[in-house]
């Protein structure tokens, strides 16, 4: 029964993730006063790459790199329950907790970094180094906010956190939500912090050596992974969801905010984004933490 549950979760994440990405391309097209492609354009792109006649590979570690990345993304998805009280769509979250999910989010990129390193493309390695440099900066405010949320709801299990929010955390603890949003924008690779694969600087970063089916695997896992992160943010800060419709509109609102935020700002340099993320959101998070713990108990 749990296998069916996992399969359903995977399929919903795959389709909803790609439809969100299609909507993203349409909305940014509208920002730029043009029509933009169909919503299913990302499906066509990834399936076309699956259909490529052949793909260049640099040895078995290169072959396994994207596979580990996809494994990391799918494992993160499995350990995040979609709804806080219903038994279905809870995946493996019964066996895991929030710390595990935080670390699983880092497993995929590290695995892919091995593949990129073996590929031997200097641009790929520079993209990975930029990603790892930005990683600890974006994780600091996120960890402070998450730790505060955990101590407020006295549990590290995502379902109980989502369920125990009488007034949703975004309004109960606005400072924590703002700090987490800053790092969420960076996590989704949106504009001021999209330094990893900046085409103008690093020749499309880590993905510059992957072609054909590896590239489509990377595309599909990024769709699944972004949906998993959206669901995690909804569970932590927007009071979880008890029905599919509520889950969808909450994740879409969050996604819309991330797109709008990204469309206004140009790209920071890596040290600048690290500097910014370590200063502004971290201070907000610490102040939020103090308020939360002082008022919390």
């Amino acid at each position: 029964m749990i296998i069916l549950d996992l399969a359903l979760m995977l399929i919903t994440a795959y389709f909803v993730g790609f439809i969100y990405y299609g909507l993203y391309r349409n909305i940014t097209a509208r920002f730029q006063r043009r029509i933009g492609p169909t919503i299913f354009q990302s499906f066509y792109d990834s399936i076309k790459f699956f259909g490529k006649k052949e793909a260049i590979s640099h040895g078995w570690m290169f072959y396994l790199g994207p596979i580990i990345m996809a494994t990391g993304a799918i494992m993160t998805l499995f350990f995040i329950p979609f709804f806080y009280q219903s038994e279905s769509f809870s995946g493996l979250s019964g066996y895991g907790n929030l710390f595990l999910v935080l670390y699983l989010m880092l497993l995929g990129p590290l695995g892919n970094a091995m593949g990129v390193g073996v590929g031997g493309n200097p641009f790929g390695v520079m993209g990975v180094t930029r990603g790892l440099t930005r990683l600890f900066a974006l994780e600091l405010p996120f960890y402070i906010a998450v730790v505060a949320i955990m101590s407020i709801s006295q549990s590290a299990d995502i379902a109980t956190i989502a369920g125990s929010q009488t007034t949703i955390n975004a309004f109960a603890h606005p400072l924590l939500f703002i700090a987490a949003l800053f790092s969420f924008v960076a996590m989704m690779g949106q504009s001021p912090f999209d330094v990893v694969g900046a085409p103008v600087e690093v020749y499309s970063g880590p993905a510059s050596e992957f072609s054909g089916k590896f590239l489509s695997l990377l595309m599909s896992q990024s769709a699944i992974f972004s949906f998993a992160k959206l669901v995690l943010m909804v569970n932590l800060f927007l009071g979880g969801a008890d029905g599919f419709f509520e889950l969808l509109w909450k994740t879409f609102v969050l996604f819309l905010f991330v797109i709008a935020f990204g469309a206004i700002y140009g790209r920071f340099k890596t040290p600048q984004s690290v500097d910014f993320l370590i200063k502004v959101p971290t201070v907000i998070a610490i102040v939020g933490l103090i308020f939360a713990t002082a008022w919390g108990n």
Partner: protein
Amino acid sequence: MRVLSLIISLLALWGVSTLFGSEAHWQIDMGSFGLEGVVIGLKATALANFFALLIAIGFFSISLIASKYKLSKGFYALLYLLLVSLFLIVYAEDYLLFFVGWEVMSVTTYLLFSYDLSREALIKYIVFALASAMSLLGGIMVLYSASHSFLYTDAHQGFIALSATLQVIFILLMLFAFFIKLGVIGFHYWLMDSYEQSSDFFTPYLSAVLSKMGIYALIILLVYVVDIHMISGTWLAYTLAIMGLLSSIIATFKAVNEDSMKRLLAYSSIAQLGYIVTVLSMADGLGGALYHSLIHTLVKLLLFINIAGIIYMTARSKFSELGGLIYRMPQSFVLLLIGIISLAGMPPLAGFASKFLIYTTLLEGGNLLILSAMLFASASAFLYIYKLIYGIYLGHPTSKRYETIREVPLAFLIPQYLLSLLLIVAGVYPGIVIPYFNTILKELRLETIPFESYTILGSEMASYNGFVLMSAFVGVFVLILLFMLSLRSKAKEAKDRFDIAYCGEVPDEGTHLHYGFSMGKELKRVGFIGVILRNSSSVFYDYISRQLFGFATVFRKLYSGNLSFNFNIAALFALILLWWGLR
């Protein structure tokens, strides 16, 4: 000699395992030798057995690789003496024997270093080792002045009997001694050179086991002498936490800037020990500390033996001279991969178990800022972890030699396989060591870690199932691999290492494509990391040594050449001193 060391290590392993359950206890009353009131003895407590096990595992793995190094007989003799002194420290039941073991350990390490270290590094080590031993002796004497006994059991009454200022002095002296041995930031001046220059055979033992003695001593101090429940909230807890955090964060960012593999791993072990020191400042942090020290020992042994293998094969030890060894040495690559996954604390392997235990204790203890600082430090560790594996195995080979190099000899691989096996088992069954830790905690009258089954780890606030995690990981990985293999589009092997998307240009032999040296060089542009990287503690110590040297030269001028005149001056000076003392 190599076979002898192997036998001895097996003997040690067997000995330690026999002592596990037994209540072996051996005590002598020194009164019979004219020192009344002094009782010393050895006691196989559960805690001592655990650390002895770590010592035995360490010694066993390095003796396996001993066959590849030409070491003189004196070296082996000193090694066995070091082993004896370590067992002495661990099994000692009183501070006197503990001090004897500590002193013998420092001196034998110095003699072992003298084979490889440069003169300057040797001086650095011996100065710090003596300082640590002297302050330890000072602390023991202060404690003895109140408790009139060296035994741990009645050390606590002595400590309470001390006046407030004497208590502070005692704790400062003891902490100074243990921080030097642990290499906490600021006291790690000796550690960097000795780790880098000591023989590759000895460094794994040095970093994995010797640093554990500092942890053991800190535990004894906190549990027996200063009751651990009293300290939470006091200045001692805060100093421990802050020193631990500082050393983990600063060491992590310094590690990324290093070009030599061994220095990077030295900084990394400082950072990991920083976690343990931090968690020891919590009231119920002992479980996490024990688990993390176990994982740290296994990981550091694995990493340093792997590095020793690389240095043995390529005779190079810098990232800027290595690279592109993955397909020539696939086994050591996979073993290093397992090592760094557990070093980083990534979920499927055991590293996550110990970090998770530390995080839950911090969460339940309610000190959230320390928890987020530790999460931040472990997240920022990814950069030097990736630099370690990229610099050696991935990327492009720096010299043509690496394209025809062979795999590391079997002697290096066997210990690494055993250690990674232990790590994988601990990853799948994280709860496997909890029952033994609970016996330790019960013996020290501390509250135990909730235990459900071998595969579950954690408390009611947060727990996770190691077996489900590993099987999910392997299951999803195999499913995706099968899906990728089943696709009609075949993966075509690249012709050579220059067939990369390089903006239309064609790289050739002379193009530098290896990013090993320059990874992490951009961190100095970030505000606070730039501050860390720019100034270091060695500046402080160089200043002190210059002042001392200046003072000594001035003092030497006093000696005016003829012996008799100076002798009278000295005698007069002694007389004045005696008069002042007797008054």
